[in-house]
Each structure stands twice: as structure tokens, then as C-alpha cells.
């Protein structure tokens, strides 16, 4: 192992001053094992959406890091997230992807748990345990904290983690763009169809940094741009609103969240979109008008790919999806993609969007296939003894971010780089790996909640 303990993560493996990150953090098995403990057991992770479990007894089996979890609604309607592992010998108590149930019965010896996690059935409880087993103590393991944010369900195993909205910090508005209605009403999103799941032979940080805001890799999507898979028959998405906007990289320091972001000029409505489907075009036009009415200046914000630390990707516009990059090994990631629509949208609009979204994203999506190929081969070509001696370069745009960005009266919090002229920067990746290093170094949340002290250590 080439890791040098004395230099630490920040100055050794993640050297932001030099703009270098060691390949070891992507391919090294020890570092991967440490990530499970220090990142995935402590951070807030996305589990699912309440529209997936509308009725009492509904469940959806999800993942938090490597571990299987059950998102379910109990008989009283309360939402829970449990470790999907029997307390007796660890058997997976729920082996379906989703469904409705009265109890989760373990197939191994038959212990049975209510949808509230309580151990309710123990074979031969009277005879073999002499009624002495403390059932209260042996219920399913529940997450330390759970938060329902506008319908999206988040959880953490760490009781000391800050609350979810504090964890998000100034990134809230970008998650809002994902979950609020296109017409500006709060929390109107519902999950469209099933969840797409697939494996990519790469480290989970490849997709995580890509969705953090890799505008530089646009060239690798040249073929879909040429094919014109977009909803107006050209490019891979409608570019009108982007062409008239300021194009930004926005990073929330301390939190490790970052995104690409567009800001329309004051008083400017987005140009027409979805021209291949008049009913969708009209729906979107109407929503934009409503959003302007409800939200005022805020309606100038236009979402684009972003990443909530560590492994949840947002894309609130075209296509409107969220993804989670589940670590499965240093060399394998299980990608899950949720597609969203406004729940009140007309059926024809939902159908058209579904077709477009899966043409773009997911394992069969033409754009996402380009990305997977890059992550797959970049990872494979970084694993060798020789290859891993050479760090990756993250120097693009170093030292050019500002913290007081404002465009025509609209202030954008965070560290911002205006890309309208420069096209690209790697500030989002530096922000992501800076936070990654902090998680890997800090012993507990008192060190990780760097914002509470009012000052942060300069890492760059």
C-alpha cells in the first residue's frame, strides 16, 4: 500500500494546493474499507422517496453504503429505515425489491418483525426460550436519524451528525429545484416508474465527481449531441435557457456539496423547450409562468447536475433524475437512478418525459452510456502498480472562485466560479475531495461540523 500515514490524506493523497489527487484513493482496498466506516457510517445518505411507499405496510429495499436497508411505512403511517439484517443470525429479512407486507419474516429460522421494526414473532418463544427473550431489545436496527425532506427520505447511522438541513447548508435551494414542482409549488415531485439499477466496474467517486460538475467532459457526449436525442429534436437537451444564462460552478465549502448552475438574466423567461411535444411545451411554459409568479427572482435559478456529499447526484432539469452511487467494492459501483415528474402533470406529459429521460439516462440511456464507458476504463487503467504511482490533475481554475457572487441583483451563496467565458473549472471536484479528506481524517462530528466554529482551516 502506497499510503503514507505521516502525510495524512489532505496533504498527501489529496493535495489541493498542487491540484493533485492520488489514484490510491480510487483503487486501494484499505482506503475503501476506511471509507465505509468514516464516510458511509457518518454522512447523511439518500434512501428513497415517500411516493414509493404511499400506504401503510409499503416498503422499498434500498442501500446505505454497502448495507441493505428497508424503507417502510408502518401500520400507523410512520416512515422508518431499518438495517435489512435479522438480529438472530443476520439473514436478509426482506429479499424483495419493494412491496407491501404485514411483517418481515426471516426465512432462516422464522423470527418475524413488524413494519415498526419490533420483534413480534419468535418460533418456540414459550418452549425454547421459556418466554424469557427480551423482544424489545431484539428488534430491527433502525437508523440513528431520518429526515423527510419534501418527500425525499434521508438517513444517517450517526446520532452525532447534525440535522439534515444543517448538513445541506446553503445547498438547500438546489435540492428544492429537484423536489419542488416546476410551477414553484413546494414538494410536488413523485417518482416515475421503477428505479433503474446497474453495476459499473469503477470506484464510486468517479460518478460522484462527474456529477459534482464536470463540464469539461462534454466532448465525450458529442455523439448524442450529433444524434439529436433532445426533446426538441436537436442536441441532447434544450439549450435555449442555458445559452442566455450565466453558467456557474457553485460549491458549498465545509459541506462538500457542489453543482453546475444557470442564472437567467433579470426579467428573462426561459426560451421555449420540448418542441417535439406541444402538450409538454405548453405545460412547461405554463409552469415557468407560475414559478415566476410564486417565486419572483428565485425563479431565475435553473438547475443542472450536482452532488450532495457523498454519493447522491441531482439533475433537476433535463432529464429530471436523482442517482445514488452505492459502493460495492473499490472496483465496483451500483448505480441507482430515480426519475421524477410533477405528480399533477398530465399523463401525456409524464409519458413523454419518461421516454426522453430513459433515452438519456440509466443503463440504456445514450448519454449515461458515454459516462459509464469513461469511468469503467479510467478505473481499469488506474489500478496497475505503475499507474497508481501517478496522481490525477485537478488544477483547472484554481484560485479563481469568489464568495460574493451576484448577477443582476441575485446573490448566489457559496464559492462560485463564473464559467460563462472560461467554460470549465475543477473547483467542484476540489470541493468534493476536500470534504472527502476531512471525513477521512476527522474522528467525530465535532471536528466535521467545521462551520460551527465560524472558521475553517484553509485547505487550499
Amino acid at each position, binding site marked *: 500500500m502506497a499510503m503514507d500515514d505521516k502525510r495524512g490524506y489532505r496533504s498527501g493523497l489529496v493535495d489541493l494546493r498542487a491540484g493533485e489527487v492520488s489514484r490510491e484513493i480510487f483503487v486501494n482496498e484499505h482506503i475503501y474499507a476506511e471509507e465505509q466506516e468514516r464516510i458511509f457510517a457518518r454522512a447523511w445518505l439518500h434512501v428513497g422517496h415517500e411516493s414509493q411507499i404511499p400506504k401503510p405496510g409499503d416498503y422499498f429495499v434500498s442501500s446505505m453504503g454497502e448495507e441493505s436497508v428497508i424503507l417502510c411505512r408502518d401500520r400507523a403511517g410512520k416512515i422508518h429505515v431499518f438495517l435489512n439484517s435479522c438480529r438472530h443470525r443476520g439473514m436478509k429479512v426482506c429479499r424483495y425489491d419493494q412491496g407491501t407486507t404485514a411483517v418481515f*419474516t426471516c426465512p432462516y429460522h422464522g423470527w418475524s418483525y413488524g413494519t415498526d421494526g419490533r420483534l413480534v414473532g419468535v418460533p418456540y418463544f414459550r418452549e425454547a426460550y421459556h418466554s424469557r427473550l427480551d423482544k424489545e431489545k431484539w428488534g430491527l436496527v433502525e437508523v440513528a436519524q431520518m429526515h423527510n425532506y419534501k418527500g425525499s427520505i434521508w438517513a444517517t447511522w450517526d446520532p452525532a451528525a447534525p440535522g439534515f438541513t444543517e448538513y445541506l447548508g446553503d445547498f438547500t435551494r438546489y435540492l428544492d429545484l429537484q423536489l419542488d414542482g416546476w410551477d414553484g409549488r413546494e414538494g410536488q415531485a413523485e417518482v416515475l416508474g421503477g428505479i433503474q439499477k446497474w453495476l459499473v466496474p469503477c470506484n464510486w467517486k468517479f460518478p460522484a465527481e462527474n456529477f459534482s460538475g464536470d463540464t469539461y467532459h462534454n466532448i465525450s457526449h458529442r455523439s448524442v449531441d450529433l444524434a439529436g436525442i433532445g426533446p426538441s429534436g436537436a442536441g441532447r437537451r434544450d439549450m435555449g435557457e442555458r445559452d442566455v444564462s450565466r453558467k456557474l460552478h457553485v460549491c458549498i465549502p465545509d459541506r462538500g456539496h457542489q453543482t453546475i448552475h444557470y442564472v437567467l438574466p433579470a426579467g428573462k423567461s426561459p426560451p421555449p423547450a420540448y418542441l417535439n411535444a406541444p402538450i409538454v411545451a405548453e405545460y412547461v411554459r405554463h409552469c415557468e409562468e407560475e414559478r415566476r409568479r410564486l417565486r419572483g427572482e428565485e425563479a431565475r435559478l435553473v438547475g443542472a447536475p450536482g452532488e450532495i456529499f457523498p454519493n447522491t447526484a441531482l439533475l433537476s432539469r433535463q432529464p429530471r433524475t436523482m442517482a445514488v452511487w452505492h459502493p460495492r467494492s473499490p472496483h465496483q459501483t451500483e448505480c441507482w437512478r430515480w426519475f421524477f415528474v410533477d405528480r399533477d402533470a398530465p399523463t401525456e406529459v409524464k409519458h413523454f418525459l419518461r421516454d426522453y429521460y430513459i433515452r438519456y439516462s440509466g443503463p440504456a440511456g445514450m448519454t449515461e452510456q458515454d459516462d459509464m464507458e469513461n469511468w469503467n476504463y479510467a478505473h481499469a487503467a488506474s489500478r496497475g502498480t505503475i499507474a497508481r504511482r501517478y496522481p490525477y490533475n485537478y488544477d483547472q481554475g484554481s484560485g479563481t472562485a469568489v464568495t460574493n457572487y451576484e448577477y443582476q441583483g441575485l446573490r448566489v451563496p457559496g464559492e462560485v466560479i463564473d464559467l460563462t467565458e472560461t467554460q470549465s473549472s475543477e473547483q467542484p471536484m476540489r470541493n468534493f475531495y476536500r470534504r472527502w479528506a476531512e471525513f477521512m481524517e476527522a474522528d467525530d462530528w465535532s471536528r466535521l461540523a467545521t462551520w460551527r466554529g465560524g472558521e475553517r482551516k484553509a485547505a487550499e
Partner: protein
Amino acid sequence: MSAINVRDLAPGTSIVLADGAEAEIVTNPGDGMWLFARYLSSPRDPTLVGQEEMIFAPDVVALGR
């Protein structure tokens, strides 16, 4: 006697248990292992009558009347 597939039993069905008790199915979770049932009689412990309990499949030895 062959084993009874508890998955097939509908609520309202009465069942005879290994200790001679009789019970009526309230809910069938469909897992093939458990039934929620209410005791109709219980020679071993008469206080159980009227109570609802989870019944483990191997304890169901026959169908009642």
C-alpha cells in the same frame, strides 16, 4: 399426516394447534411461516381464549370445523 401450507389459508379459517387449542385466522401475512389468529379454545391455558397471537406454521396440525 402431510404438512399444511399455511399460505393457502384465508382469514376466518379455523385451525387446530399442536397442543390441542383451536384458533381462527385473523390475518395471513403470506410468508408461509406465520398466521395471526384468535384463540377459540385452549385446554393448556384457558386465559388465551379470545386473545390474538402469532401462530408458527409447524404448530398448525389440522384444519378446524
